[in-house]
């Protein structure tokens, strides 16, 4: 029995424990402890992360119809698994205390929540451990259904949307696997990889394309992104933190597996698209860039904090894919590191927003404001989170984005570079709106008696904030894992040191950057305190054109925060983009209605039918 088996068993135990603990007060805590146990188990496998061991195999093997299903962990799996379990532990910790109590009081079932979360982790671990394509598919389905379960806790309607997407995705993946099997005769990774080199471009187009579409749906690549925002936003807070942090990255994991490990990015470069100058890789890169730009700009218009974050979650996925398809040492390191970074700050942001919702009951940005004085620690967590999300120094988001930018400069892709920068700037704009409308500005009178979130919620946030800062200060901590992942999947390996990257023509040393920045702040503080003593004043003691501000005036600038920008891009946003979205959503509603009908009447024929159609289709092809 290998370590991996122990880990999986532990994970299974979590599910069972969650099931048995039910709605007890200690349920969340006990589950959290087991997650911590999983984390320890993973840490015992850290040889994978540091490139000391190449893989750990599971002792379990299944043979179905002479087909051998097996599971294993390599550096890539370990990297993702580590993030997954850590995110789950923190989300569970976050949910265990006051939040769970409030959730229970509102009529929610903690048992369901804990089980769904644990199932998610289990599914993901199984997925990450898959040793060949069929076990990948099994893991994939597990994850899909577990995610559906978690989403359904929030909103059945949006969960149904997801389900439609997931089923379509699963069918597409299945089709791709069938094609692979037909072409290669095996689903083992090494055999597929060997055979892929010999396949003609059309087959690669089909197989790769279908796989990317199938997994891209989970990752919410443009244009398959529409399910994600609303579903994540409706999910109970800690669940959203977990999903936002890692769930979608399973798609990225699978794409990395297929594109990098099996097909190889260099192969994509040799696949031109007729009548253009683009290759398949460029196409993917552009999909990634659009995945950055559009959701980010859409986030600007949101006035619900959770939706805003969920849109950013989609947008940030683009950086990861972009970095990976650039596929040089810097870019792919940036993309992979961004998975880790994104998980940290997205989790902390969702947690902070959840803390605000916990205290005030709303995440509508037009109904909040000025909460800094009441929830300073949540503010701090959000501040660190948004600096990370925006990719500014000194937080870790900057490092991964820097790697992507740098690789694009070396690669000589100005338009892609421009796209990423547009994404970053759009992010800065919308995260400022987020923090301004929540924590800064006018404190509403009904929120004057609000308190800081309980310790059980604040501690995970602080821990994550510390991680964001530390890995920004010493990016080498994460780059080590990233480098072994690169080695494991056959990418060029990054030359890194504790502070960042050595490069002949322009490196990065975050230790210096952050130290100097901190020193600058220190000097600025000294300069600041050389001035006279200050006295704090009430928010009504404020310049209002010489007018007396009164308590009944609402002077918080919140809605339509960037009108100037919207005058320019608004028409585009309103007409084409929104109409497209509306069309898709109504189609989805229809489909999900159908699906939910079948689901309720227990008609598996629907799945069978679709399956048969797709199989026939592929075979005829």
């Amino acid at each position: 029995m290998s370590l991996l088996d122990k880990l999986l068993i532990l994970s299974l135990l979590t599910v069972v424990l969650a099931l048995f603990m039910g709605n007890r007060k200690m349920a969340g805590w006990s589950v959290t402890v087991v997650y911590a146990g999983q984390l320890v188990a993973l840490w015992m496998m850290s040889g994978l992360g540091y490139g000391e061991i190449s893989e750990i195999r599971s002792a379990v093997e299944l043979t179905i119809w002479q087909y051998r299903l097996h599971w294993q962990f390599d550096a890539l799996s370990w990297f993702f698994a580590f993030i997954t379990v850590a995110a789950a532990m923190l989300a569970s910790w976050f949910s265990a205390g006051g939040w769970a109590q409030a959730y229970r009081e509102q009529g929610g079932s903690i048992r369901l929540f804990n089980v769904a979360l644990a199932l998610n982790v289990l599914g993901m671990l199984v997925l990450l451990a898959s040793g060949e394509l069929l076990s990948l598919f099994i893991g994939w389905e597990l994850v899909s259904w577990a995610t559906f379960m978690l989403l359904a806790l929030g909103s059945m309607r949006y969960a149904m949307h997801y389900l439609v997407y997931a089923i379509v995705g699963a069918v597409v993946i299945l089709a791709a696997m069938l094609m692979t099997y037909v072409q290669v005769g095996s689903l083992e990774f090494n055999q597929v990889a060997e055979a892929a080199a010999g396949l003609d471009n059309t087959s690669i187009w089909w197989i790769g394309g279908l796989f990317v579409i199938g997994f891209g749906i989970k990752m919410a690549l443009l244009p398959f992104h529409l399910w994600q925002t609303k579903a994540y936003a409706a999910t109970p807070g800690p669940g959203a933190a977990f999903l936002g942090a890692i769930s979608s990255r399973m798609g990225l994991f699978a794409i990395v597996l297929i594109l990098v490990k099996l097909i190889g990015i260099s192969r994509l470069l040799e696949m031109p698209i007729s009548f253009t100058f683009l290759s398949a890789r460029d196409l993917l890169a552009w999909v990634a860039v659009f995945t950055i730009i559009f959701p980010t700009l859409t986030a600007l218009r949101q006035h619900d904090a959770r939706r805003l974050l969920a849109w950013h979650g989609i947008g940030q996925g683009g950086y990861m894919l972009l970095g990976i398809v650039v596929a040089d040492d810097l870019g792919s390191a940036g993309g992979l590191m961004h998975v880790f970074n994104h998980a940290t700050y997205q989790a902390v942001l969702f947690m902070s927003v959840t803390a605000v919702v916990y205290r005030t009951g709303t995440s509508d940005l037009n109904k909040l404001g000025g909460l800094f004085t009441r929830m300073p620690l949540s503010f701090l967590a959000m501040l660190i989170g948004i600096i990370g999300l925006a990719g500014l120094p000194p937080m870790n988001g900057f490092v991964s984005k820097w790697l992507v930018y740098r690789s694009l400069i070396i690669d000589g892709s100005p338009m892609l570079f421009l796209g990423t920068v547009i994404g970053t700037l759009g992010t800065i704009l919308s995260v400022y709106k987020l923090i301004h409308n929540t924590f800064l500005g006018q404190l509403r009178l009904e929120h004057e008696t609000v308190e800081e979130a309980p310790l059980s919620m604040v501690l995970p946030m602080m821990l994550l904030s510390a991680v964001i800062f530390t890995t920004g200060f010493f990016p080498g901590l994460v780059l080590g894992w990233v480098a072994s992942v690169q080695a494991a999947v056959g990418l060029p390996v990054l030359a890194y040191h504790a502070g960042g990257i050595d490069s002949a023509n322009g490196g990065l040393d975050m230790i210096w950057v952050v130290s100097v920045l901190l020193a600058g702040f220190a000097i600025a503080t000294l300069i600041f305190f050389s001035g006279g003593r200050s006295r704090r004043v009430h928010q009504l003691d404020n310049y209002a054109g010489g007018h007396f501000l009164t308590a009944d005036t609402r002077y918080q600038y919140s809605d339509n925060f960037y009108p100037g920008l919207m005058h320019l891009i608004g028409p585009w946003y309103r007409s084409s983009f929104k109409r497209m979205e509306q069309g898709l959503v109504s189609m989805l509603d229809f489909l999900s209605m159908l699906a939910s009908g079948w689901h309720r009447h227990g008609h598996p024929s629907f799945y069978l039918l679709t399956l048969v159609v797709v199989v026939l289709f592929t075979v005829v092809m």
Partner: protein
Amino acid sequence: MKRKDISIPVEQPKRSNPLANVFDELMDFCRSRSMFMLHYCTGCGAIELPPAMTSRFDMERLGIQPMVTPRQADILLITGYVSIKTLKRVIMTYEQMASPKYVVGICSCTVNGGMYWQSYATAKVLKDYLPVDIYIAGCMPRPEAVIEGLRELMSDIKQGKANSWQRYYKNYDYYLGNQQKLFGDNWQTPTDIIAEARHYNLISEQTEGKHTAVLQQHQKPLEAFEARLKHQQGQAREQ
């Protein structure tokens, strides 16, 4: 009515460190050379400020510059008559300015009501309500006179004599009394002058008195929201 003597002796702080005086003098010099005036046209005398500011007389060569909000400004120019409605805003604006701050009463109307002495709507003697550093009389004073007056103020500041703002803190009761007489007892500005005087150690026996007692009766506390982890006050209220 007999006017109360509200002049205060200028206290020379005793400093053992000789450099401290040098530093104070440097600060006074800088203050005199950099005066941000509030861009608030309270009355008709404001029409002579644009000429004084612009190309012909160019106040900026003396370091005088218009600023928009009271927070940024050092000198408050009361350019002419102040109607009662304006006076309230002027007082609030004055209290929002950061000390050292100076009030310049321009035009005859600020001295004694000017030609509107009969008017039911204008306040008459500005220095009853605000401590005035310098008056520039005239209806209206020419730009040269305005600049001359401001230069006078500059030399006062340089010598450390322009400390009317301390008078406002130290005789707040007197000023508040006059304000209450005009605006009614429930007059309150958002700035808590007494707390400010206490914070900056500018409090004297005359800061508080019977008028501030009236204020405290009516006052709704406007304490700053301090960043805090727990809300003790709210719990106390519930109990």
